[in-house]
């Protein structure tokens, strides 16, 4: 893990400005289908930076950086802007709303949480009967979402409407080596892509796709990849680290990824069998430059790569994620060092890409 190699100094670094950007991204409310807040941040950050930038029909932001030489590989990098959350469905009485969840949320995580609703970030609470009124802990069962309400109070309730999105109200903060926030999945990826568009390796044509509706089925990435039709693609995301020791002291054999072990390179998930050439290239880059990395355990889950690699005549694809504990809850934890190493690994992986890589048999 020596940070002293000269090549490594060339990659964009994580400093106070990057942390501040990540904080703004994590605190934004951008639940699938209404990604406006994050999109606005992305557009502002890349104004005058990207050679070309557009918002497509589904709301994806597509930003391109040209290569220094003609004939360069066209590389799509995808990071989804949306997060899991809630949608107001119907007002029952003054400011008390029925709601549904959007994307994969464990219903046990909902009761008693503070939330922010809509573009005005109206504060509310997912109400729950307090413990005073239970006679025994045995009564404390999971409350189905149909029986839960978001309570905005009578005044703010007037400003809210069915269809508006809500997220957990957690604020971003740094704690020693850790980053704690909601929506680190996938504002870490969004922040990573912004840095790469700002400081791209010059040997590739960089096609950055900030995608919508990943959490509800990779919908944005699908149309973005069709439109961009790249030579290869890397989805940049955040994946769960389920790395705490087992309660009985036995060896944890299904951790998915582990915090502090560097960027997670995907081998196989429910949606994608990563292109072996790209897996090898990422690992070789990490090995050559002493950038730590880990392989995400094969299994379920998925990223935008699941939609991207099936477009047109097929697009060689892989995913790289920053590991994070407690994904899709009100507060997840990632390590700043893992993020830095993810950025470095991606930068140098791109920098070392040549068309020869894809001429070999997969």
């Amino acid at each position: 893990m020596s940070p002293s190699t000269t090549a490594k100094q060339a990659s964009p670094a994580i400093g106070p400005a990057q942390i501040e950007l990540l904080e703004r991204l994590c605190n934004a409310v951008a639940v699938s289908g209404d990604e406006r807040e994050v999109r606005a941040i992305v557009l502002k950050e890349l104004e005058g930076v990207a050679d070309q930038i557009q918002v497509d029909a589904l709301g994806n932001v597509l930003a391109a950086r040209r290569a220094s030489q003609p004939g360069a590989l066209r590389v799509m990098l995808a990071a989804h802007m949306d997060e899991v959350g809630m949608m107001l469905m119907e007002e029952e009485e003054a400011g008390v709303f029925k709601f549904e969840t959007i994307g994969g949320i464990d219903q046990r995580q909902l009761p008693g949480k503070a939330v922010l609703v809509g573009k005005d970030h109206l504060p509310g609470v997912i109400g729950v009967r307090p413990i005073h009124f239970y006679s025994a802990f045995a009564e404390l069962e999971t409350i189905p979402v149909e029986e839960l309400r978001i309570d905005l109070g009578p005044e703010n309730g007037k400003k809210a409407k069915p269809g508006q999105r809500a997220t957990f109200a957690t604020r971003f903060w740094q704690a020693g080596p850790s980053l704690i926030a909601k929506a680190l999945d996938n504002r870490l990826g969004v922040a990573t892509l912004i840095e790469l568009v700002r400081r791209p390796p010059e040997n590739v044509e960089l096609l950055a796709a900030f995608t919508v509706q990943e959490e509800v089925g990779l919908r944005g990435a699908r149309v973005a990849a069709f439109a961009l039709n790249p030579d290869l693609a890397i989805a940049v995301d955040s994946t769960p680290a389920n790395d705490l020791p087992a309660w009985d002291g036995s060896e944890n054999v299904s951790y998915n990824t582990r915090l502090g072990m560097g960027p997670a390179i995907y081998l196989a998930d429910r949606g994608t069998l990563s292109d072996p050439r790209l897996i090898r290239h990422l690992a070789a880059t990490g090995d050559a430059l002493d950038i730590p990395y880990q392989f995400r355990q094969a299994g379920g889950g998925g990223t935008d790569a699941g939609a991207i690699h099936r477009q047109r005549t097929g697009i060689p694809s892989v995913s790289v994620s920053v590991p994070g504990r407690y994904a899709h809850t009100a507060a997840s934890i990632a390590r700043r060092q893992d993020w830095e190493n993810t950025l470095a690994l991606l930068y140098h992986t791109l920098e070392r890409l040549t068309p020869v890589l894809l001429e070999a048999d997969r």
Partner: protein
Amino acid sequence: MKALIQQLSEATGPSGYEAPVRELVKSAVAGLADELRVDALGNLIASKGSKSQDGLRVILTAHLDEIGLMVTHVDEKGFARFATLGDALPQTLIGARVRFLNSAQGVIGGEQLDSGEKLHRLDQVYIDTGAAGREKSLVQVGDVAVFDRPFLDLGQRMVGKALDNRVGVAAVIEVMRRLETTPHEIYFTFTAQKVVGDRGATVAAYGVDPQLAISLQVTPSGDTPKARLAEIALGHGPAIKVRDSGMICDPRVVRWMTETAENAKIAYQLEILEGGTSEARAIQITRGGVPAGCVSIPCRYLHTSSELIDYEDVQKSVALVVELLSRPVPWL
């Protein structure tokens, strides 16, 4: 064709890592195709013939890939936990031997269960590569294996690993060999990544942009003791698919197939498959839509290390497809 089936069955080609079997097929069809290419996902596309006035651009597919096992963790004692590439039932894995792409070998074992009534879950089985600890392990996270099982010739019947769908691959190669004249421009397509969700066929069909599609694969038979209900039996000829859980075959294609079989006096059966599908499902909805149908070879014990088929079914399937492609399609 038996020797070819054996060779293909014993070749290695788990989903996403089909290179060894693809190379084998490439050499088998090299002299038979006008053009050969491998696309970004690993589909091998061999084209032959040019479209005459009453011909069509046809895609004929057979998937190359087989079920694979990918190591997810090697524990401190050297046992390798794994995920499957494609679906396999854990209880059918125990006792099977496996061979890794890096040529390491092992056997699958299962944890002791607390009740004889229960079946193993995937997280309760593991590969024992003989390593006496993590440091000695010849396999690491990400290494991929397939079943290691020699082909067994029972005369009329054959048993092998990956006969799903190497027997279909052999049949398509045989069709290429036997098809002397055709009005069609045919893309013999050996697809990748079928068992994980028809991914190869999805992009191959986009590239070929066919006017007609036929997929050749195996289908589970219902002729074993207390089998799941299916009116499919070994030795009764090719199964012409009517529908499955992912597609409804174009009725014109189904009629064309059954009438062709009747005219050529080839015994056939009709296939309605519940709880499974064919990659023709993906081809059918490519671009503006493609008329699609399937010829299936009945098979027992699918997705285990010992799949069993009937040789005559294979030969009749080849004969039917050759008949189909030798003449213009009457209904277009």
